[in-house]
């Protein structure tokens, strides 16, 4: 009897937490589906009385939302690919090769990660515009890479360190060169770590606002976070329903990411500490 009451209480608590965390999301989806006049209706409705996709229609046809979305996808994908390529190679180098200053480099890299983004904003902007990449998506990719890379390097470093050296050596004895052994044996073992790192980089660049706002002044090259806000600020009163529709669509890629890669993600974060 006591066990059952305990179980019920435990469940109640968990559901309270779930509702508290999920409420803003539900509110976002609900508002996005409301017609304009229902947005400020009193008493408020969580589930729209007259659900409509009108906000989404307006968003996709009357606003530059799709342009921003494409830009965001390009920047996030570009950053992710660049970060993965550099971080995998760098992490492998830091783990496998002994050279003077090895641990110093590893720690310096982390040090840059500790600086607040605002501190680096101006210097990075000056560098980017000096090399002629201001107002370009590639400039943003480079800026995001600078702050995604240190963490990616550390995540992958601990991950690759957990892959037994003997595996690579076995491949080399079996007739593979070092690069071939890396591709055949190390990379497949590192896949969960690479996926975790990729998600981290993707989400970081997908959500970034400050740099995107400062680096890009041309409307057709804006990414979603600053793009959506300027779009909504053009009118005197903020169109909340439209904003919520934009937010819903912005969440979709991240959500898809999590749904498909969740299994690998937990494996990735957990596996770096467990030796195989």
């Amino acid at each position: 009897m006591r066990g059952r009451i305990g179980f019920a209480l435990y469940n109640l608590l968990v559901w309270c937490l779930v509702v508290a965390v999920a409420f803003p999301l539900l509110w976002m989806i609900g508002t996005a589906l409301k017609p304009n006049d229902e947005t400020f209706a009193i008493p408020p409705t969580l589930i729209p009385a007259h659900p409509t996709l009108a906000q989404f229609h307006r968003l996709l046809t009357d606003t530059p939302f799709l342009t921003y979305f494409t830009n965001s996808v390009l920047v996030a994908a570009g950053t992710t690919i660049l970060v993965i390529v550099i971080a995998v190679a760098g992490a492998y180098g830091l783990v496998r090769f002994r050279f003077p200053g090895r641990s110093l480099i590893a720690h310096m890299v982390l040090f840059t990660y500790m600086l607040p983004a605002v501190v680096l904003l101006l210097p990075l902007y000056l560098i980017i515009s000096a090399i002629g990449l201001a107002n370009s998506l590639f400039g943003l990719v480079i800026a995001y890479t600078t702050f995604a890379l240190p963490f990616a390097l550390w995540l992958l470093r601990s991950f690759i360190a957990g892959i037994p050296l003997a595996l690579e050596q076995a491949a080399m004895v079996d007739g593979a060169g070092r690069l071939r052994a890396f591709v055949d044996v190390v990379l497949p073992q590192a896949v969960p770590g690479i996926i975790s790192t990729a998600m981290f980089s993707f989400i970081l660049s997908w959500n970034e606002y400050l740099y995107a706002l400062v680096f890009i002044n041309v409307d057709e090259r804006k990414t979603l976070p600053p793009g959506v806000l300027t779009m909504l600020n053009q009118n005197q009163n903020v169109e909340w329903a439209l904003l919520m529709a934009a937010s819903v669509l912005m969440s979709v890629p991240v959500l898809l990411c999590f749904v498909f890669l969740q299994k690998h993600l937990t494996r990735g974060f957990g596996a770096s500490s467990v030796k195989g």
Partner: protein
Amino acid sequence: MSSVHLKQLRMAFPDGTVGLHGLSLDIADGEFLTFLGPSGSGKTTTLRMIAGLEHPSAGEIWFGTRRVDLLSPADRNVAMVFQNYALYPHMTVRRNLEYPLRKRGVPRGDRASRIAEVTALLKIDGLLDRRPRQLSGGQQQRVALGRAMVRPSEVFLLDEPLSNLDAELRAHMRAELIQLHRSLGRTMIYVTHDQMEAMTMSTRIAVLSQGRLQQLATPHEVYHAPANKFVATFVGSPAMNMLVGRLELAGDVLRFVSEHLTVALPDCRRAELHGAPAQVAAGIRPEDLRLTPGEGDGRVTVVERAGHEAVVWLTLGRQRLVARAAAGTPAEAGTAVAVSVDGGRLHLFAEEGGQRLIGACPA
């Protein structure tokens, strides 16, 4: 297949420690040579240098008439079984076995027939579609052996391949490895710290300690004529008893004299001992120590009865000794025992440096 020649191999690590001090030895074609030694003796380093996974600081490695120490592991054409097997976890057993063949450009048809041959020999043909983590330790061991056997190689290297198996399986795999060596006829180089493996499988044993070769000989010689005190005490279980004493000439008889034990040496050894230092260490194998329970200076501390024999631990003054006795020995802990030894069974070593002065008399 080929012979292997190590010439003045030296390994100095970046921190200044020396792992290997100029090792030279020749391994004949088709031989089963074991590097035996405690951890840190340089045995694994030597094997890894032969494989090309570590680079000697100085010296040369030759396979037959081909110098290989500057070649990459892939170009040396060696096969190796790693201590933890190092099976590729993301590949099935079949893909694991196929990997070395693919890297050497063996055509598909030949690959299948080679794999079929090896898996039949190792009795792993039912496991081809499993992944390494679905296999037991013994099965993983066989797959690792298979991956090394599947293609022709000049030398077959094994780095403590049995150390992760349980005792029963280890004994079983020892017998299988002996058979395998006989049927493959390949040059095998084996690394272990387990003297039982070294004694049972090798054609010759290279005993290493602190980066130096202590003795290179057949298992019989290593056991019956150890080159120095280290080899004498390292090989054999329980270890050889070591007593410090002097050589004395009493009348016509040469004697070994220690605090509680005096042993007359037979005539056959006198000539060999000419000019020997007076301070010596005498080694006595536990099976050469004769016990007479009931009276004497010795005191039994522990009797380990193992069924087919008994191991008796005793003290003689301050000296601890161990003897092998018949299973039914009346010796009991706490009782007195007399100790004697046949002078012909005594191994004598220089107290200084530990070099062997003489071994046992020819029977």
